[in-house]
């Protein structure tokens, strides 16, 4: 069991957990992830590491409620425990002085991009960060990113905060302005990463994306996380999770990630129903009791 020393929502449906996991805290490098299992009947899911504190022996993870497991996880509070957390998994990001690096974080992907941005800055790069969110609430880690970047741009889909538009609009502006870009690192939803890849491919800008396929063990054993990279199978857990964006077949990634959509929906519906029943249970009892008294 791994103890949650702190849990707090940082945006609607997005929670940050600080978890006691000294071994992982000590070894974590930018670009790596963990796999968690909430309880005995739980599935194993890969999650982003935002950062870790080797001295305190804790790792931070940022979780967005999407399916049952993430909803369940986000219902946990400070002082609760999770059954399993294993990592750090995957190869660390390649960090060196490339020159100018554009780091793009979309939604909760910003949490994974953050340690890489920070390391890129430390390595001497000029770091230009673009953070995108559907709305103001989903713009994550802006303050933290500002601390490690030379320039930060923020976009929201609805224009409710900062610049209206997509992260790629900002990237196009940078390219059109003649900004020299040596590397782009994009972490976020697949459509975002695909759009970034399409844009930089034409410009021949080296681009790295961090992929999030379905995964079970995270150690190379199951092959469930295989992605098609220039027609060849590679495993996101041991060969990735970062890949050359221009070589990745995003269509296959989208298709494979949809494999369990029906089951995932059923799990989530059952879970929500269960929650609802729990929250209604006392009220119903009162109603029955009153009924009885009549």
């Amino acid at each position, binding site marked *: 069991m791994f103890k949650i020393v702190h849990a707090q929502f940082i945006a609607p449906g997005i929670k940050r957990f600080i978890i006691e996991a000294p071994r992982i805290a000590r070894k974590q490098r930018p670009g790596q992830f963990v796999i968690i*299992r909430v309880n005995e009947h739980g599935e194993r899911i890969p999650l982003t590491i935002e950062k870790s504190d080797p001295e305190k022996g804790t790792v931070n993870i940022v979780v967005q409620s999407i399916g049952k497991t993430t909803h369940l996880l986000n219902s946990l509070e400070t002082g609760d425990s999770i059954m399993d957390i294993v990592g750090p998994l995957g190869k660390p990001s390649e960090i060196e002085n490339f020159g100018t690096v554009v780091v793009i974080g979309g939604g909760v992907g910003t949490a994974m991009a953050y340690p890489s941005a920070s390391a890129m800055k430390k390595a001497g790069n000029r770091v230009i960060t673009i953070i995108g969110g559907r709305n103001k609430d989903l713009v994550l880690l802006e303050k933290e990113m500002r601390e490690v970047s030379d320039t930060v741009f923020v976009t929201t889909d609805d224009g409710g905060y900062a610049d209206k538009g997509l992260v790629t609009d900002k990237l196009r502006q940078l390219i059109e302005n003649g900004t020299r870009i040596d590397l782009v690192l994009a972490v976020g939803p697949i459509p975002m990463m695909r759009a970034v890849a399409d844009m930089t491919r034409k410009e021949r800008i080296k681009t790295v994306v961090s992929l999030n396929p379905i995964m079970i063990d995270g150690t190379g054993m199951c092959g469930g996380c295989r992605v098609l990279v220039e027609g060849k199978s590679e495993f996101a857990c041991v060969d990735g999770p970062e890949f050359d964006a221009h070589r990745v077949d995003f269509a296959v990634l989208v298709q494979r990630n949809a494999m369990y959509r029906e089951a995932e929906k059923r799990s989530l519906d059952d879970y929500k129903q269960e929650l609802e029943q729990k929250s209604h249970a006392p009220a119903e009892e009162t109603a029955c009791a009153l009924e009885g008294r009549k």
Partner: protein
Amino acid sequence: MSTPTTPKTPPKKSSNPVPNKERIKMPRQHMPERDPQIRAHQFTEVNLGYSEELARQEALRCLECAKPTCTEDCPVGVNVKEFVQLIVDGDFMAAAAKIREDNVLPAITGRVCPQEDHCEGACLLCKRGESLGIGYLERFVADYEQKHFDVTKIVKAPPTGKKVAIVGSGPSGLTAAGDLVQKGHQVHVFEALHEIGGVLVYGIPEFRLPKQIIREQVDIMREMGVEFETDVVVGRTVTIDELMEEEGYDAVFIGTGAGLPQFMGIPGEHLNGVYSANEFLTRINLMHAYEFPKYDEPMVDFRGKNVAVIGGGNTALDAIRSSRRLGAGKAFILYRRSEAEMPARIEEVKHAKQEGIEFQMLAAPLEFLDDGKGWLRAARCQKMELGEPDASGRRRPVPIEGSEYEIPLAVAIMAIGTTANPIIRQTTPGLVTNKKGYIQADENTQKTSRKGVFAGGDIVTGGATVILAMGAGRRAAKGIHEYLTTGKW
């Protein structure tokens, strides 16, 4: 009761009252098993085990050879003759202790070991009919011991003050751990997954090896003093160098198993519905996907659908028999050679046939075809014929020109072997591996190129069997003990 640390007892005289000539005529006692019609829909264990009476009946058949070839052919050298004699005597706990001198996982090998390739294949009774049911007897004794085990009777060896890290809790790691703890070393086992047992847990299905059996065997090892830590991926969570330099381990045994599943590299392998056997079996066994939604891990709906497993080994049979249990309509094995070349255990092939599994021999897929929405619709296959023997000694499959045909398929599971996992290799400087990425280790001591580091099992040999991995774990334990006591490398 006797304990795992009991010193070897001297050979005893036989009390078998049946004359040798009569023993040859006695038929082999059948293993009671669940009805195929019923068990094809359940994950409960197929074999039910011998009763005491059946076990004694079977034990009486042993010819008590002066030079027991069964023991010679056993990778861990179980003293078959003597434990069988103890069954004849009715002293089942003594029989269990006798097995434990050489094998710390008897309830597991009694169930999954390919006995026909080892002890039973070497049994002299084979020449006159059916071999002695050594595996069944071993299982009987182990299960009896489990029921009557008294942890308070465990005698621990005096501590040597030496610490050994075991990487991986599969058959080789558990065997090495069991042997080393009996020598008085402090043994700590690291496991990457959340359950102890490695391939025994994620690979072998409940109907062949119930998880409870593994848990019980592991619990005995815990009582013997072995420490277990789950959720540690050695190489990532902690490196081998850190274990030795910072955590004070005097020796490390690497028993991480073969690892990465292989694919054929044919078109359509990325379609939804195409699995590696490792993924499919992990979902079923480790993650209990067959109990969805009670357990969260999902599985594609198999009910009424056509399912094929590509391959002919035990993994292939485990996968197809699991598919059957998930409700597959037509479930078949697609194997490029003929049944005679299948590496699977004979008993598994028999059980699979009883459960309605079809065997399409001498055929291989060329391509998986799409339904237009990213899901598998069919496989285009090719027929084969057998040519000259290849490096493995088995006759090589040769494609027959113009024999292509299409079969409708909803699920295809690739069980064509594995390749070496790169994590330890990439994170352990100076550890020499071969061209295929497997770790180089001495055949007798399991020593690697790194001082204090030993390796054994599939990560050295490539995919093999539980018992061969256990044999390597045993040799490594001997090698480690010698290194720790003499300090000589």
